[in-house]
């Protein structure tokens, strides 16, 4: 009996200790140095179909860099779902890579941690100056008025991808240009197990990207000019309702999409179950899913009907990947040199071609590869009608809070519960209250 009690006490202590160790942390200090000039570590985000594909694309380039400079780059490709947590861990421990990729929407949040090297005029000069980059891409490198926390590496934009055969079968001759068109087109197609539009209802980031653009089209933003959350404005509520209504009211999105978060909507598209998807640079994914290039078409993402003003014609967020240097790097010169190499004209053409993205470097965009069916629309969108997500330190929290609200509204719609302006407003108000107090 005694031993059993001892075992129980032991087990309890262990479990309790485990419960309380959930929040650990460390401290770090200091800036970078050049103590280790011949070596760099690089965390690349997973861009291609798999981590292996990325290694194949990047390794030859890293070898080239080593040949040119004598600096060896140790590569680690980090899956997208792990990347932010890995960066946070590196930030708290101070033990990070020298150079890393970040999602460009995180720029301001990560900038606030102070872990990334600021790109002031002097640093930008080392990589050829700010003017080399497209403005929209520079718009998502950190809070306005501060030195950017990162440099744009790959740019992406949302576009409307459609299945040519399904359109032809339904007697549709051209892709929809406005939301009204899209709903009408979707209704024509949505029958007999086929659906008009695909969505990723449980993917928080994707939800944010879609409702952000719709909010712009309704003349609203999710943050006030001084960076305070403003989730319940009429425009924001209307935007979220419009997006969820594609399933709830218009019934052009399959209810099953409410639980999608792993790009299932893309595989539905490739299988011919869904006729349209709003996605960023999907061509490479379609190919890996066995779809031929001539089976799908691409058009700019829809805008409101009539003649919308400048902001209201926004039809994509500026998506993309930035490259940052960890402040703690012990090869800060080498790291800058590496960023210069990766953002050089030649590398930009090569890498963006490999990933189907658009170079944020102006000079590289002239390559014919960025004027094909897959890329011309994206390039045009980035140049003219894409807007950067709010560059505020709370952006990461915003993605979670509002992204979750949209996910819950989709769950309501899928389960046949009514989605009303009030229910949308209520969810958004709850999301706003969860944001940190200032």
């Amino acid at each position, binding site marked *: 009996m005694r031993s*059993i009690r001892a075992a129980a006490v032991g087990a309890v202590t262990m479990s309790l200790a485990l419960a*309380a160790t959930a929040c*650990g942390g*460390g401290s770090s200090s200091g800036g970078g140095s050049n103590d280790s000039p011949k070596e760099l570590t690089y965390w690349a985000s997973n861009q291609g179909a798999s981590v292996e594909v990325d290694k194949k694309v990047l390794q030859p380039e890293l070898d080239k860099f080593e040949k040119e400079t004598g600096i060896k780059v140790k590569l680690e490709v980090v899956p997208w779902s792990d990347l932010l947590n890995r960066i946070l861990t590196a930030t708290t421990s101070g033990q990070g890579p020298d150079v890393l990729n970040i999602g460009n929407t995180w720029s301001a949040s990560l900038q606030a941690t102070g872990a990334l090297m600021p790109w002031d005029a002097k640093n930008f000069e080392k990589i050829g100056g700010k003017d080399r980059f497209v403005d929209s891409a520079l718009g998502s490198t950190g809070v306005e008025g501060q030195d950017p926390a990162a440099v744009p590496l790959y740019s992406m934009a949302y576009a409307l991808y459609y299945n040519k055969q399904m359109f032809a079968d339904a007697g549709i001759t051209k892709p929809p240009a406005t939301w009204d068109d899209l709903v009408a087109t979707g209704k024509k197609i949505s029958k007999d197990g086929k659906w008009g539009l695909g969505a990723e209802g*449980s993917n928080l980031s994707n939800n944010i990207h879609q409702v952000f653009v719709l909010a712009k089209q309704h003349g609203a933003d999710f943050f006030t000019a001084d960076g305070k959350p403003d989730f319940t404005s009429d425009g924001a509520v209307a935007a979220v309702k419009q997006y969820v209504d594609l399933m709830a009211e218009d019934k052009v999105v399959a209810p099953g999409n*409410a639980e999608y978060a792993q790009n299932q909507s893309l595989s539905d598209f490739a299988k011919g179950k869904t006729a349209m998807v709003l996605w960023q640079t999907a061509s490479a994914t379609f190919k890996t899913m066995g779809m031929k290039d001539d089976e799908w078409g691409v058009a700019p993402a829809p805008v409101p009907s009539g003649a919308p003003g400048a902001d209201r014609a926004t039809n994509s967020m500026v998506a993309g990947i930035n490259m940052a240097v960890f402040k703690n790097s012990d090869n800060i010169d080498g790291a800058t040199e590496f960023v210069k190499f990766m953002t050089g004209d030649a590398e930009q053409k090569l890498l963006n071609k490999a990933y189907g993205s658009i170079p944020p470097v102006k000079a590289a965009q002239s390559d014919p590869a960025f004027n094909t069916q897959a890329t011309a629309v994206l390039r045009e969108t980035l140049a003219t009608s894409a807007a950067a997500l709010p560059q505020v330190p709370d952006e990461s929290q915003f993605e979670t809070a509002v992204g979750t609200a949209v996910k819950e509204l989709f769950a309501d719609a899928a389960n046949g519960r009514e989605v009303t302006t009030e229910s949308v407003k209520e969810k958004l108000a709850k999301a706003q209250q*969860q944001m940190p107090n200032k």
Partner: protein
Amino acid sequence: MTTTTASAQPGERTVGKSSPGTVRGPRRRPGRIRRIGLPYLLLLPALLLELLVHLVPMVIGIVMSFKELTQFYIRDWTTAPWTGLDNFTMSVDFDAPVGEALLHSFLVTCAFTILSVGLCWLIGTAAAICMQDAFRGRGLLRAIFLVPYALPVYAAVITWAFMFQHDNGLVNHVLHDQLGLTDKPSFWLIGDNSFVALLVVSVWKGWPFAFLIVMAGLQNIPKELYEAAALDGAGVWQQIRRITLPSLRPVNQVLVLVLFLWTFNDFNTPFVLFGKAAPEAADLISIHIYQSSFVTWNFGAGSAMSVLLLLFLLLVTGVYLFVTSRATRTPRAPRKPQERKTADV
């Protein structure tokens, strides 16, 4: 067992008492010190590791709970400003959204834990009792029963996540297409049903452990008791009630406590099943704290919630150990209150 202990103790005592008087006395002294010091020396590595792995992070976690630790300070958390009890008051202010959400997730977790532990115990005990008598294929069945326990959690839960999918999942295929039990395919990974899905996976994963422990407990019950009971005309149910369950009480005490702690703290199952934003109906407290800390980057609030959880678990465990140890210390106490106590948990 008893004989060894009995003979060893008097032996030691004699050596201790006689040592100063004997000729070899002075040479014993360092030996004695060594003998007293050695156990502590041997414990030292474990103590140090325990200190490093559990206690230090725990203390850091507690310190963090008193700080305003957001993305602005995570690079060097020691510089974060002190906020006093703000994180705690915010967590327990049940009228405000943060506290309300925490309370909701706490209640969901309580309901989930009671149901999951209860079902795990029930199924595990029933299976163990059924497997008690030898029959052809018993070994194979026992092995099969342990499969869920042996599988890597991630692989098992992700398979369940596939099975619970709305469009192509096996669960809807069986319930809707084959058996026609539902009007239309149900959602299991979003909305209210997610609680059921979580419970099913948790029980599936947890009952083999209960089965294993109860089976081990059953080995210790003397066969003679059953034979005697059978001779006196006790049926199977009476034997279970009067012999098996009372004999298993000490085993069950540990089992229920461990299952309770594991289930209450379970992070893997909901995280793999639902991702970082669990549906409201299945928003377990572990996920909730993770989200507060690591997804919304409010590490201070997350730490405060962790500390509150720790206090709650300490309280429950303390009460449980107190009640159950009292129950075992007074075996001749009236039977009814004892049974009620076990049933309450």
